[in-house]
């Protein structure tokens, strides 16, 4: 009797694959004619039948299956001249195409994207795509263009603090963002305590931030995926570009390994605040160090018509040292080896081996002591992804991912005759894996569906010592586990579903649901990102976080895709959230799991985005109305309270205006109502000191925040191959003292009096950068 439903189910699953007779496939790559870069998302359609088409994947590969016959194929990518190819398609054919960028006309500043109407026509919602070239003129702190800082100006994304590179997406925590650089996870994406992100945008090709509706190929974090792709490098000729600024300088060199077959790109950046320290007459400052550097390297080579390999690496480090007494350095190193293989005209495969390491090190020399404190987390990752395009209406992706995590939470080593004891915290290991399958299906002219399922699992294993605790957090027992012996296993299904219904050519409605498991958690003792924040795995004590998100929206384009407007609402349910007991000792604590308390959260909101993509004036206006709440039995007497990142109104306006061929103006204006904060509601004295008395958690608000940033780019020289320009920026142009922290303390002169003290970090911060390209 259940024959019929099973039959329907089978048909639904296999429908995409049911072959149609006499179909032939044309496939190949779509690249940039000027430098050989893959054009991600470029589309190819049959002239006259725009509903039959294909899009190039992350490696520029496309596959279009049609009945045998003669066709005119149209290849397009916004910002490039479209190209037509007439073919007689009788058998599977390879057709590689290069598109030339349009020469920039003043009225035609175009942002390079796939389809001009993708805001309306793509099934994927809750995503913000950024072209690193577009943000060159968005003014940011210290003049260093920064993709994370720019993403903080988009709806649903909030900065973790003034100048902070940490961010919260749709009410989620700072550790719920998966940051990938060419598929390698980046654990600490900020330099200098958060004032700079680790991304040098000269080396980047594409940045997509998924705030919801995450495709099934991604997993591991609850709130977002920031997928950053590096450029491959110009495979036709050598080129160099860079900039010299007040705080940092950068240089990028790229060129062909073998013309049209392989290329490399090396991009580096370094700050030199410490060079100014060397000019000081103070001996202590002379011997001090303060710098960070980033180095991105990538090479790729086309081995054969069907095979291509990539090697990429990122090395970044922050170094701080004071007079040889204290040294503090930390950084990420990632490496990726990838192999693209075209299995058939319909099937594309990518195999990646990924290595990622994040560590910090503190060295202390004082009073004859020589102390080194270290901590690290290391991942080895094997990832296999297939893309199968059976016909123009279906793109099926499937694959698996296995990560081996090694955590070394802390080692404290002293040498010689010391008044301290060496210690080492127990290491931790885990194996995280996932398999997924997803189909992006064009059901009809109007209806698009993206449905997929991901199964993820996490095995917390030895060799390690595992502890158990009572309800108060006191240790009850401990047990040693051997190498690879399983301590706890977690796993679950993560459905990912999205639908789009096109109302007409210029508008559509979309809805999505997805579930994400997160097995790694960042324990942080402060609101600002600190390099000493520790990543801990799920364990016999810590359950994985589970985030369910529903979102729905209305999408409309105006004036022939010049304006993209979207209104999206979301609702997020967060389970197994982590917080700390009062006075929790997170640093160097073997029993840190006993300091944790668990609860749940909800976040919901509405996001409005109006984006202008073409013309002399480009930019966007973003408004978010949202709440983010938490509920823990052990906090706030079990009553729900606003999360720290709960900021109800959040407005950002980003505008870039081409005054003429040589001058470009830009401005940002940001306004947001204050984050939730815990302030006292009374005071008392202990040992003669005035102590603030707190009642509910996060029951107050920080003062409202707003600032204006201005920028000016002056192009002094521009030819086809070279460019020189000056960039001037002024952060916080009207110098508002925005509260960074508010603390409550007794008055210095009159201890009987208590007051609230505000610290503001930056008022006017001007910056000058000289940029060049040749």
């Amino acid at each position, binding site marked *: 009797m259940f024959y019929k439903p099973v039959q329907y189910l089978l048909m639904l699953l296999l429908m995409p694959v049911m072959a149609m007779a006499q179909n032939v496939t044309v496939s190949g790559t779509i690249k940039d004619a000027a430098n050989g870069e893959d054009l991600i998302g470029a589309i190819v359609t049959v002239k006259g039948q725009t509903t039959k088409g294909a899009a190039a994947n992350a490696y520029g590969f496309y596959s279009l299956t049609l009945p045998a016959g003669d066709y005119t194929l149209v290849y397009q990518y916004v910002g490039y001249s479209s190209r037509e190819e007439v073919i007689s398609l009788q058998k599977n054919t390879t057709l590689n195409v290069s598109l030339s960028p349009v020469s920039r006309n003043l009225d035609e500043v175009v942002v390079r994207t796939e389809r001009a109407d993708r805001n309306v026509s793509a099934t994927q919602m809750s995503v913000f795509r950024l072209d690193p070239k577009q943000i060159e003129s968005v003014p940011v702190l210290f003049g260093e263009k920064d993709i994370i800082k720019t993403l903080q100006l988009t709806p649903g994304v909030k900065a973790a603090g003034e100048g902070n590179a940490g961010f919260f997406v749709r009410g989620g925590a700072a550790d719920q963002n998966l940051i990938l650089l060419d598929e390698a996870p980046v654990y600490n994406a900020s330099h200098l305590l958060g004032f700079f992100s680790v991304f040098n945008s000269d080396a980047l090709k594409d940045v997509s931030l998924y705030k919801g509706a995450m495709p099934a190929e991604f997993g591991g974090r609850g709130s977002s995926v920031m997928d950053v792709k590096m450029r491959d490098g110009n495979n036709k000729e050598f080129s160099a570009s860079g900039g010299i600024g007040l705080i940092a300088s950068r240089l990028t060199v790229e060129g062909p390994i073998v013309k049209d077959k392989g290329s490399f790109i090396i991009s580096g950046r370094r700050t030199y605040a410490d060079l100014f320290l060397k000019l000081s007459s103070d001996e202590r400052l002379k011997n001090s160090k303060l710098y960070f550097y980033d180095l991105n390297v990538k090479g790729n080579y086309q081995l054969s018509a069907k095979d291509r390999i990539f090697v990429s690496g990122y090395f970044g480090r922050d170094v701080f040292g004071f007079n040889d007494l204290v040294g503090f350095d930390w950084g990420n190193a990632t490496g990726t080896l990838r192999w693209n293989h075209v299995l058939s005209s319909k099937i594309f495969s990518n195999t990646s081996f990924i290595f990622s390491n994040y560590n910090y090190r503190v060295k202390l020399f004082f009073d004859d002591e020589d102390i080194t404190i270290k901590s690290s987390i290391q991942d080895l990752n094997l990832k296999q992804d297939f893309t199968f395009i059976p016909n123009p209406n279906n793109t099926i992706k499937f694959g698996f991912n296995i990560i081996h995590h090694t955590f070394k939470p802390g080692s404290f080593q002293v040498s010689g005759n010391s008044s301290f*004891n060496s210690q080492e915290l127990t290491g931790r290991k885990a194996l995280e894996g996932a398999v997924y399958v997803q189909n992006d299906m064009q059901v009809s002219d109007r209806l698009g569906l993206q449905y997929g399922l991901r199964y993820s699992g996490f095995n917390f294993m030895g060799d390690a010592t595992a502890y158990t605790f009572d309800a108060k957090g006191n240790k009850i027992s401990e047990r040693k586990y051997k190498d690879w012996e399983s301590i706890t296993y977690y796993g679950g299904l993560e459905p990912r579903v999205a639908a789009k219904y096109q109302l007409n050519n210029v508008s559509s409605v979309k809805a999505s649901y997805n579930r994400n498991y997160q097995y790694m958690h960042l324990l942080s003792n402060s609101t600002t990102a600190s390099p000493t924040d520790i990543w801990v795995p799920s364990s016999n004590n810590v359950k994985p976080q589970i985030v369910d998100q529903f979102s729905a929206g209305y999408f409309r384009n105006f004036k022939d895709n010049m304006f993209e407007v979207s209104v999206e609402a979301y609702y997020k349910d967060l389970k197994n959230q982590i917080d700390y007991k009062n006075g929790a000792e997170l640093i160097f604590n073997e029993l840190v799991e006993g300091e944790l308390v668990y609860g749940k959260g909800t976040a919901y909101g509405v996001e409005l985005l109006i984006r202008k993509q073409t013309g002399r004036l480009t930019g966007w206006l973003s408004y978010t109305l949202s709440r983010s709440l938490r509920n823990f039995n052990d906090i706030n007497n079990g009553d729900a309270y606003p999360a720290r990142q709960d900021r109800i109104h959040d407005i950002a306006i980003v505008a870039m205006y081409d005054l003429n061929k040589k001058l470009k103006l830009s401005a940002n204006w940001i306004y947001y109502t204050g984050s939730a904060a815990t302030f006292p509601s009374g005071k008392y004295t202990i040992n003669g000191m005035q102590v603030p*008395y707190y009642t509910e958690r996060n029951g107050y608000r920080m003062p409202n925040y707003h600032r204006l940033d201005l920028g000016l780019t002056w192009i002094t020289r521009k030819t086809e191959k070279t460019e020189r320009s000056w960039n001037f920026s002024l952060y916080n142009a009207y110098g508002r003292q925005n509260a960074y922290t508010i603390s409550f303390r007794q008055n210095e002169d009159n201890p009987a009096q208590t007051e609230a003290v505000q610290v503001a970090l930056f008022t006017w911060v001007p910056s000058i950068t000289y940029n060049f390209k040749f």
Partner: protein
Amino acid sequence: MSKRLSLFVAFFALIFSSCEKVVDIDLDDADPQYVIEAEVYEGVDTVEVQIFRSTDYYGKSPQPPIDHAVVILSDETGDSTQIPAAGQGRYLLPDFTGVAGRRYDLSVTVDGKIFTARAVMQQPIQIDSVTAEFRKADFRSEGYEVAARFTDPAGVQNFYRVIYTINDTLQNEPGDLYLLNDKFTDGKVMKADLFRRFLPGDKIEFELRTMDEKVFDFFTTLNDVLNNQEGPAPSNPNTNIQGGALGYFGAFTSSRKTIIVTD
């Protein structure tokens, strides 16, 4: 050690121009809470208990004292004494002998409420020596570094507080709270040094106190509230008093030593 780390962070923050100013923040007025500070010392000393009510945050008048509470100190041997009120919120019991290793219980009954607390007096630790050594400028300016040394007993967890008086003025600002434990220094000679440099003629008195873990937890969370409000969410210090009062009940040992810096 944490003082050094916090200093280099401070140096760091100094490079970035920042502005600090007093601001007007509207605050609620919570119901007044009972605040109890109670201390009993090893050896023959006066037991002192102070009981007050909290006030609203911006209030300028001193906190109102409670003089009508019934305060009883007892210990594990069954001995129990009432501590008489001495006016102005203080309750004093002179010539009380505190015994190291003994567990003490405090009970305060006031306005129909009962607050109880328990503290265990630790073994006394003596300051072995106090030294003054000349140092060239490093984090601090050139001058004499003054430090007290004491030996931490191995194999047991120890918790300390160092209180210092400079030229007869008790250093009692929130930033002077100085707490140590033996997490990294079990069994070693520990050093308490002051984060400033001194000149010849300066007189510095060190007092080393020991306490149990719960009282130490109170003082470290008190330190977080006073000196580290940048944490994710400040919260009232972890009190060892049951019943809903703020404050602490501590059983301390105390050792003092003085040095006058000479050339």
